[in-house]
């Protein structure tokens, strides 16, 4: 009966009311309640259902609930946005984020920014979202002004926007979001609107394109409603009479999608976006079943629109890989036949070498997805599973609710757009490591092959000719260091997250030392794989505030070589003792006993975490096959 949700890649909901009632009536602990809420949120909800779920789940969004990551979002807008809160909260539930939302008084965003006693300052946001409505932002311009007057008005509009960004960033050191300005004003000249210096409609267009550059400079993340508006049409997002009635520039019906756009960019900054696309083969990357028809019989490329659709989809997937998405294959097929299609079909865009983990067998797909995640050393919640079969999708959703499983359209021509719209791989920036991730995983595969040819680990490790190259935090490494700090979940002792600005501040702080670690070997450069932050507590102690490492280099003695380096660096600063801390999370059990293994003695241990100490005078450098160099 109810409206179709704009979140079309999520499965349709049935009996929503009954499920919601069940959720509300359960007196479950927070963990169970949270996962129930997240399951409900991962369905195609319309705005009324979204409101209802947000309301029902409010008790879970309390800061004191020990589940999910709290985001303190301040919305600084010139129009009404209260109706958008539920969409943002529910999109947060989808990603393990608890949104606490503050909204400035109607139209008071500048005053609230400037006034240190305002509610905004008391709220202490960790994310600020600016949304300026079209009329407000262009109000100083009119068609009667001459060129020079217009130029000065437009300059002052731009500096006002940049002032807001700078002010929020300096005051709160937080993530800044800027919503694009909706093109809701009618033209006065017509198709040559851009020739009229004082056109407000033309100004919106030019501000939006200016904003893309300015946002890069100001380190601001865009909530680009306008990109979606190109597909959905203005009337999906905006209703003229609603604006007049309630000053809502975004329609309530669009709030589920709006909320998702906000939450995905917040999640991306936290390193919560998906990392790996797992592809089915038959009818997902080519038409037909290769096991039935043979390699020559599959539908791919030349001769049919369907075949061309699969080629285009493969090209899109390859572009995802080029910018850092890991690719895997999970197919019910005979492995030899599946591999033969990759090797010998002339129209295949994807090659075996693009696929970091290739699983083709007759096991159930949930089992195979577990194997893929463990093979790649990433969490199941980092996987997006693309499969044309509703049966397989449903099975995976039921067995592995943490895996993202988009409802693939029936029409293969729409697969790429569906993945793009779903936003699972949303990224706010691209690092050099992202560009070469594919190569890194291929090199890893080679290392594994070499490993198989050695019977003992020691001769394998020594054959790798590893070098751990360290330096203090550097401007060049900054974005990768921040990415690691925010993305690393498993080998991470304290899981403290820092923004780029905070990492930058550490560089000049004499009370801290930050080390970025790069690992090279005979197969290539693994890039920056480790981060250590030490804090000088007094003249004798250094506390290891953060120690984390990419799981790509596990089992290669990097942790031992890192400790040797830490001790050496501490010693030359006159430090007598290292203090290590371990704070358990859902994902970092692998480093639970790291300090003990490395020779630290246990000081205290309670449910919040453990403290260890290492007397430097008693420490003997640990033997490794890694050469440690400054570089």
């Amino acid at each position: 009966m109810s409206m179709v949700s704009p979140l079309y890649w999520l499965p349709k909901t049935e009996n929503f009311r009954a499920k919601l009632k069940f959720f509300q009536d359960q007196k479950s602990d927070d963990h169970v309640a949270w996962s129930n809420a997240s399951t409900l949120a991962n369905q195609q909800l319309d705005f009324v259902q979204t409101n209802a779920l947000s309301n029902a789940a409010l008790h879970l969004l309390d800061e004191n609930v020990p589940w999910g990551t709290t985001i303190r979002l301040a919305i600084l807008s010139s129009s009404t946005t209260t109706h958008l809160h539920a969409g943002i909260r529910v999109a947060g539930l989808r990603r393990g984020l608890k949104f606490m939302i503050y909204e400035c008084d109607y139209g008071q965003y500048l005053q609230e920014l400037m006034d240190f006693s305002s509610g905004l300052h008391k709220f202490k946001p960790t994310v600020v979202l600016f949304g300026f409505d079209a009329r407000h932002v262009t109000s100083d311009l009119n068609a009667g002004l001459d060129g020079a007057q217009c130029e000065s008005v437009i300059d002052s509009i731009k500096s006002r926007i940049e002032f807001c960004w700078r002010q929020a960033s300096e005051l709160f050191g937080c993530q800044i979001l800027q919503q694009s300005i909706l093109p809701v004003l009618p033209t006065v000249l017509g198709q040559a609107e851009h020739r009229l210096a004082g056109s407000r409609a033309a100004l919106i267009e030019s501000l939006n394109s200016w904003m893309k550059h300015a946002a890069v400079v100001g380190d601001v993340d865009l909530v680009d409603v306008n990109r979606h508006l190109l597909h959905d049409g203005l009337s999906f997002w905006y209703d003229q009479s609603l604006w007049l009635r309630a000053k809502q520039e975004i329609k309530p019906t669009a709030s589920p999608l709006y909320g998702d756009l906000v939450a995905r960019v917040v999640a991306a900054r936290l390193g919560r976006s998906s990392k790996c696309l797992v592809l089915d083969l038959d009818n997902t990357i080519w038409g037909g079943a290769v096991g039935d028809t043979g390699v020559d019989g599959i539908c791919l490329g030349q001769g049919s629109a369907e075949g061309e659709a699969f080629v285009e989809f493969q090209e899109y997937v390859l572009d995802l890989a080029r910018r850092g998405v890991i690719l895997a294959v999970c197919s019910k097929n005979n492995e030899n036949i599946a591999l033969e299609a990759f090797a010998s079909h002339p129209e295949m865009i994807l090659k075996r070498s693009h696929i970091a983990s290739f699983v083709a067998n007759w096991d159930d797909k949930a089992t195979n997805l577990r194997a893929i995640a463990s093979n790649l050393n990433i969490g199941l919640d980092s996987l997006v599973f693309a499969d044309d079969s509703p049966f397989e999708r449903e099975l995976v959703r039921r067995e592995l609710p943490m895996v993202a499983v988009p409802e693939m359209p029936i029409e293969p021509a729409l697969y790429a757009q569906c993945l793009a719209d779903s936003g699972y791989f949303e990224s706010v920036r691209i690092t050099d490591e992202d560009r070469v991730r594919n190569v890194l995983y291929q090199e890893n595969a080679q290392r594994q092959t070499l490993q198989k040819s050695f019977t003992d680990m020691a001769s394998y490790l020594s054959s790798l000719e590893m070098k751990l190259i360290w330096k203090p935090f550097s401007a060049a490494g900054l974005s990768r260091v921040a990415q690691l700090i925010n993305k690393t979940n498993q080998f991470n002792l304290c899981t403290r997250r820092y923004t780029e600005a905070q990492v930058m501040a550490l560089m000049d702080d004499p009370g801290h030392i930050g080390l970025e670690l790069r690992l090279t070997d005979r197969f290539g450069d693994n890039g920056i794989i480790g981060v250590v932050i030490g804090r000088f507590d007094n003249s004798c102690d250094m506390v290891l505030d953060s120690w984390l490492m990419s799981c790509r280099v596990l089992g290669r003695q990097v942790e031992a070589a890192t400790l040797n380096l830490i001790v050496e660096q501490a010693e030359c600063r006159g430090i007598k003792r290292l203090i290590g801390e371990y704070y358990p999370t859902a994902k970092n059990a692998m480093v639970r006993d790291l300090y003990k293994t490395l020779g630290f003695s246990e000081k205290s241990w309670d449910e919040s975490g453990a403290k260890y100490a290492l007397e430097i005078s008693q420490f003997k450098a640990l033997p490794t096959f890694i050469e440690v160099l400054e570089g």
Partner: protein
Amino acid sequence: MEDREIYAALTEIIRDVLMRDEIVLTPKMSAKDVEGWDSFKMIEIIMMVESQFSIKVGSRQLDRLETVGELVDLIRVGTAKHSQSV
């Protein structure tokens, strides 16, 4: 469309939007008689009505709207036009 059907569908919409399962609509009922039925909820109700009955409620009509009975009239007239044009 019969008034009985309109009332049934409208009751579902209003219960969903206001999140209150006990609401029973009467023709004379107006927004101020129902706790939580403010101007924003009114907008949401109208958007659901427009979508489910495939009609458009104009700004003027909405400004004048007072009671549930009047809303049902709008829906009856709107859907009648709809079925004529089909």
